[in-house]
């Protein structure tokens, strides 16, 4: 137990503890550390880039209910006894096991203005002209949200599948005899039965949505403009490109408080129900 706690202490708790005093300094690689009081926090709230980044990170939370509903639906569909179910499970899970880098390379090709997606949409007359999905500030963030959803549903699907195994089959059978529709069964029986899993998955999903970093980092670097800049990406830029460690620490503290707030909200919301 000790080696585990030691590693956690150094690489998990020390960052948390140390970033608090760090946030009140102007520490960077060059020069000494000075105490600057609340200056970093005052700067943060008048920093229009950071505000834009926060807005994008919070917009990202929209995908949480969407991911959860889709992965629940997938899990229910693949919990039936039918041939080939295992193959489908593997196929649906496939995007989860691949790296964000690999996924990003494929999607950046597919989504570029001369790419396959545009060809399909033009060919079927859904679009009348090409859209460069990732370099258009109206679409870029939504496209990233789509890719995150696509990559994430399999992950939660497996957790729900595991949960469904403890739901007795007689329950849905009985409902079906009472002529409940599949949709009624889904919302009135399965979701309440899976509540512990739904709460846990929503929590994880909310946290990773606000913290989102990989997709914008690899695919758009925050652009065009600030349209896909997220809070984590901005903290990274401040810390590792400007080496403004004190300011980066202050921004992380603000982000941590926001994440805490959202997590508490998810927890309380579910308790009330």
């Amino acid at each position, binding site marked *: *137990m000790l*080696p*585990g*706690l030691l*590693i*956690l202490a*150094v*690489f*998990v*708790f020390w*960052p*948390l503890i*140390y*970033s608090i005093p*760090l946030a009140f300094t102007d520490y960077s690689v060059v020069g000494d550390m000075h105490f600057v009081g609340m200056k970093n926090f005052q700067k943060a709230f008048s920093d229009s880039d950071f505000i834009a980044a926060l807005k994008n990170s919070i917009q990202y939370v929209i995908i949480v209910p969407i991911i959860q509903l889709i992965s629940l639906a997938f899990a229910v*569909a*693949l919990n*039936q006894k*039918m041939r080939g179910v295992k193959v*489908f499970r593997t*196929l*649906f899970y*496939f995007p989860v*096991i*691949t*790296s964000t*880098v*690999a*996924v990003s*390379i*494929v*999607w950046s090709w597919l989504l570029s203005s001369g*790419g*396959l997606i545009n060809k399909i949409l033009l060919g079927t007359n859904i679009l009348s002209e090409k859209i460069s999905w990732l370099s258009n500030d109206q679409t870029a963030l939504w496209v990233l949200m789509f890719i995150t959803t696509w990559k994430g549903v399999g992950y939660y699907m*497996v*957790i729900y599948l*595991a*949960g469904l*195994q*403890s739901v007795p089959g007689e329950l849905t059978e009985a409902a079906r005899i009472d002529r409940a529709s599949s949709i009624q069964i889904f919302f009135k029986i399965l979701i309440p039965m899976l509540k*512990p*899993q739904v709460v846990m998955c929503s929590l994880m999903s909310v*946290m990773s949505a*606000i*913290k989102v970093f*990989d997709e914008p980092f690899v695919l758009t670097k925050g652009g065009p403009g600030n349209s896909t800049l997220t809070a*984590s*990406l901005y*903290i*990274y830029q401040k*810390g*590792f490109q400007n080496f403004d*460690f004190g300011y*980066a*620490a202050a921004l*992380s*503290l603000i982000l*941590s408080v926001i*994440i805490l707030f959202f*997590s508490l909200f998810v927890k309380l919301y579910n308790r009330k129900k």
Partner: protein
Amino acid sequence: MNRKIKKTFTYLILICISVIMVGPFLWLLLSSLLPNTNVYDFPYNVKLQSFSISNFTGVFEFVDFGSYIWNTVLISGASVFLNALIASMTAYPLAKLNFKGKDILFTIIISAMIIPSTAAMVVNYLTITKLGLSDSYLGVILPTSVTIFNIFNMRQAFLNIPDSIRESGRMDGASELRIFFSLIMPMVKPSIAVVVLFQFMASWNDFLWPMIVLNSTNKYPLSAALTMLNGQFAYNFGWVAAGTVLSILPTLFIFVLTQDMFVDGVSGANKG
């Protein structure tokens, strides 16, 4: 009859979703097997004789892909082994032993999950540099050698094991360590499989932290090398596609190996 239609319909929808989920990868595979691919020229003019593995040999010959793969194997292997061992050893007392402050300790550990990883990264980078570990594999591996997620997972698995097992071991005169390794550990195999799979995926696919710690690009793992490759050889779609396919295969392999234990392991973790 009605049933048959319903069944066909279900399969049809499932196949459509599969195309969305796996289609991009099949297209990637196809692109990697065609020499001189231009990914914007789809639909490709595919003839059976035009398939070749020249992109794959090219990647090994000109980009030294072999050494990137070796780097990745080293980093992920060490990380998986350490996580399976340390997470279990840390989680076991939290689940089974009685000591003061146990629940508080666990709550503190779990609540640390809210820290954004980029935030921790800044401080961890300073720590690694102070320890003199920058540009070393140890510097890459150490911060990820045990994760809270894995500790949580293993704790849930240990909670499901009845106390009587431990007592019977003690009656036979086995030491606490012996009980742990020869009685308890074999019982949590599915959860170990989950830890192995998730940790392997995480470290095999991680690119940011290795890129921060390692200054020498020849020490890069695959994902980091791939970002570099995509920048340098962006015009050579075939090579990038081949490299991407190669980077996916090992995780696919591990997933297929652990798949059967997988759903059991996840359900074990969620019972608590």
